[in-house]
């Protein structure tokens, strides 16, 4: 009874979460190529993607190119199991974990968050932690 309580007074004091903490999935939509890998790999199909093809005007001396343009990217966090497979599956580093967790809603339908909100969460993504000295250097560095 003489010891201090260890409760953290949450709304006044924010928890200090580690960078890997799986709070919410942020979308860096500039990197997204609409390859749909994340939506296909998701174990419970909670990612919704719509897109259309767009033809770029031909650059001088070249052919006209088509590319996919993202119309809708939404994650239904009511369904999401927070496994992180989409983030692993993304070949273009468009999805990231953020420790942000304050997005509770009163209605389950409002837990489906669209690309604007997902893009905003990108600002909360922390840099990844440094690795243990026993680790191999990350492949990005090795490739250099």
């Amino acid at each position: 009874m003489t010891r201090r309580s260890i409760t953290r007074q949450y709304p006044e004091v924010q928890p200090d979460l580690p960078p890997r903490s799986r709070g919410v999935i942020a979308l860096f939509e500039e990197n997204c190529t609409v390859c749909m890998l994340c939506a296909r790999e998701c174990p419970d199909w909670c990612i919704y993607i719509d897109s259309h093809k767009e033809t770029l005007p031909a650059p001088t001396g070249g052919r006209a190119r088509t590319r996919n343009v993202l119309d809708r990217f939404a994650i239904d966090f009511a369904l999401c199991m927070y496994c992180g497979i989409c983030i692993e599956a993304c070949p273009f580093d468009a999805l990231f974990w953020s420790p942000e967790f304050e997005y509770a809603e009163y209605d389950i339908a409002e837990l489906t968050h669209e690309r604007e909100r997902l893009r905003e969460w990108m600002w909360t993504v922390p840099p990844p932690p440094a690795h243990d000295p026993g680790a191999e250097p990350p492949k990005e560095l090795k490739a250099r």
Partner: protein
Amino acid sequence: MSTERIVGVGAGTKDLATEDMTLNIGPQHPSTHGVLRLRITLDGERITAAEPIIGYMHRGAEKLFEVRDYRQIIVLANRHDWLSAFASELGVVLAVERMLGMEVPVRAVWARTLLAELNRVLNHLMFLGSYPLEVGAITPIFYSFREREQVQRVMEEISGGRLHYMFNRVGGLKEELPAGWLGRVTDAVAAVRHGVGDIDRLIRGNEIFRARTRGVGVLTREQIEQYGVSGPIARASGVDFDLRRDEPYLAYGELQDVLRVVTRTEGDCLARFECLLDQVHASLDLADACVARLKELPPGPINVRLPKVLKVPEGHTYAWTENPLGINGYYLVSHGEKTPWRLKLRSASFNNIQVLREMLPGHLVADMIAILGSMFFVVGDIDK
């Protein structure tokens, strides 16, 4: 809390005959922590027959496994027993790796051993807190949760999750250890070792607690062998069987001098509780040994690069591990597809709970609480 029927409570209907009362404990009842239902027949307050009715939380895990690739199976596998998520993931990846004949990097093996032991500590601390709560002591659970928080912080730091770690991958672990993490594990282990003493002093020596649990719900060796009871519950009855020692997987083969299998001979509720308590200490020692080893190991990878589509060759294997609550086995049958043809899950609680039918009759309703609490089950693990 539903009542099936109350037949002639008390006397006075016919010839002063007293009849038995049928009582449904659960599926919603404070002592079943989850949706386990027990139909018990009472003579006064003494139980004459008991039947566990399971399946209220059946999620068809085995069927879902069949339509998921191996990475997705890990998501599901850590969810049937939410208190031993890491250990359950481990069984799946061990089975797949064995089928593939894959060599797992040394650092991954030791890190997995470390995480599995930390997971065991987390699981046991939960029950060390909840069991006294069920027999009426409300304080120990807060002490155990304080210790759990210490371990959970390091688990969250490495895996990002607090309950469903999702950190195993076929061929190793998902990510590298963060810098300085091993030091924080050592601190957490030391803090927990110190803090478990509080629970020990508060409960183990308490006269009321001993009176409630000693000699109550005695499981015999014979019953354990007939019903396939495993884990700390079996070891509390003197069944000295622990896969970590008897069929070593991961790095347990090299940890034999640190590994201490905790057993008791009494087989009652108190023995089960003490087994759990001592096993926490044993696991903390193992965790320390793993940390020491991980610090010495030469730099190396923590996982294996996998092909884009992972297909397991045709065949079958059975991988079993010593989960915190008992033996957790996966029987994997593959037809060479990227999903298993069949993945049978043998979960610890499912087998452990069946013996209740034999244990409960003859005891009082109050003993039923003590027995249920000491059977250390997770309803998700029963119903799968």
